[in-house]
């Protein structure tokens, strides 16, 4: 049996198993440590209530014993509170956020900002900052970066390299990939909107301001790893719970609203075929289909696609989006594609594309019938060299065709 992943092409693969922290140092993704718990409040947000448990409660159940350790925030991994905050699309709780900001300045030994100003989005915040001539120096280092570096060093010393890695994998690491991808996309979107691209003098000026932001709700991964309630990061946690990105300057703090819409697919990628995948109340928005950035007017065209239009599209990435949106099954039927191979596992199809590798797919029947007794059919794209349906299905599970033989399927 081949190892899972032997056929992976390219560096962008996402291995089976879900989120793995970019900072996880390759350690086993493990459980056993508990971040701050929380309870839902009636405004749709979640408020922290209790301290993180002792990090040494790693479960070690063996044999017949049943591990009944579980989280009590309703999520499988105990990170539901942080996940909720990171993805919150409700208006900022401005009073709570401002209190958190003032407390963060005080905790850093700084005088509170003279003014706190609000913007409708990170884009508007950057524009606003550029007009502020009296904001003073950026104090992000003393408000956030230095305390975080100290806490990370403390945890690293206390837990050891392996222990820190496990702690990160069980906490922030699980939120890191999708949150960081979102942060990167927002930064790119702001750069493109304000500077017309990601290079050049103007882009550099915007980029430097973006790098001065504290990420508010998107700081959830790090805070999940660091923050026991009542600890040194209570103020930063309060802002994470209450607002979007914010910029700490000596005299002024600039705050951004949170998004009003956020659509992600199962893999955590921005994904919406019918409108912005991410939108802020002032109109700043990002469009994406299964993680791929697309122009806003491209989505409008998706509703009226034809096989001819798809075939004529020269941009291979946009054509893939068109194919996914149109539906592989519909395209196979409408373009008179011929099956390459059939066996007990399904049917293998192939469509040759100009200037791109061929589209090869297995058509598989879902084994559990739907309530009406029919079986749902689904298509999975497989590597173009696949020769039989069974080989294709086996590939989707990372095993060789000769050994793929489920004795039971549901």
């Amino acid at each position, binding site marked *: 049996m081949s*190892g899972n992943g032997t056929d992976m092409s390219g560096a962008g693969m996402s291995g089976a*198993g879900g989120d793995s922290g970019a900072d996880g140092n390759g350690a086993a993704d493990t459980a056993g440590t508990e971040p701050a718990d929380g309870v839902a409040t009636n405004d749709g947000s979640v408020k922290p209530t209790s301290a993180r448990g002792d990090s040494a409660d790693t*479960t070690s159940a063996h044999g*017949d014993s*049943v591990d009944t350790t579980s989280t009590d925030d309703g*999520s499988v991994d105990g990170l539901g509170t942080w996940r909720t905050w990171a993805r919150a699309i409700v208006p900022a709780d401005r009073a709570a956020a401002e209190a958190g900001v003032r407390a963060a300045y005080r905790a850093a030994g700084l005088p509170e900002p003279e003014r706190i100003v609000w913007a409708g989005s990170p884009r508007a915040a950057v524009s606003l900052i550029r007009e502020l001539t009296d904001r003073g120096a950026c104090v992000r280092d003393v408000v956030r970066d230095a305390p975080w570096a100290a806490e990370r060093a403390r945890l690293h010393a206390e837990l050891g390299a392996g222990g820190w890695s496990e702690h990160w994998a069980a906490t922030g690491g699980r939120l890191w990939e999708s949150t960081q991808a979102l942060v990167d996309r927002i930064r790119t979107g702001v750069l493109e909107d304000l500077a017309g691209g990601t290079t050049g003098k103007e882009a550099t000026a915007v980029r430097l301001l973006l790098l001065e932001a504290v990420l508010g709700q998107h700081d959830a991964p790090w805070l999940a790893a660091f923050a026991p309630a009542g600890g040194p990061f209570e103020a930063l946690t309060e802002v994470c719970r209450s607002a979007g990105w914010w910029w700490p300057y000596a005299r002024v703090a600039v705050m951004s609203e949170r998004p009003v819409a956020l659509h992600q697919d199962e*893999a955590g990628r921005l994904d919406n075929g019918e409108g912005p995948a991410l939108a802020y109340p002032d109109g700043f928005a990002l469009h994406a289909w299964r993680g791929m950035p697309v122009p806003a007017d491209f989505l409008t065209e998706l509703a009226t696609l034809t096989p001819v239009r798809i075939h004529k599209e020269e941009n291979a990435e946009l054509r*893939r989006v068109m194919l996914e949106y149109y539906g592989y099954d519909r395209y196979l039927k409408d373009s008179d594609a011929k099956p390459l191979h059939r066996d007990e596992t399904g049917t293998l199809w192939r469509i040759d594309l100009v200037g791109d590798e061929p589209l090869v797919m297995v058509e598989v029947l879902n*084994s559990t019938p739907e309530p009406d007794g029919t079986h749902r059919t689904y298509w999975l794209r497989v590597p173009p060299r696949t020769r039989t349906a069974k080989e294709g299905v086996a590939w989707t599970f990372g095993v060789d065709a000769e050994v793929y033989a489920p004795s039971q399927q549901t």
Partner: protein
Amino acid sequence: MYRQGDVLIVPVAEEAVPAHVAHAPRERRDARGRLVLALGEVTGHAHAVVGPGELIREPGPFGPMLLHLPRGGRVVHEEHAVITLPEGWFRVIRQREYVPGSVRIVAD
């Protein structure tokens, strides 16, 4: 081997299980006391094992996850029929899909 939707469960001979697995950290159970093999973050639907046992993340040829069921168990999911597993060790594999330039997991 057994397939429930996008998860394949392959028996592993006990003598093939690496020795260090005995000391590896175990995955936490969910709020309902189940071992979650795969979770759909958006639907919240999970492939999960009910009953005594352990789930270990194990990168490498036996990973990404090893399941140990000393008395057998049942694999449940909101949209698939239950699968009954015998006692023993299993490798849990999540289905993936080919994307030119990358590979992504399938979520049902």
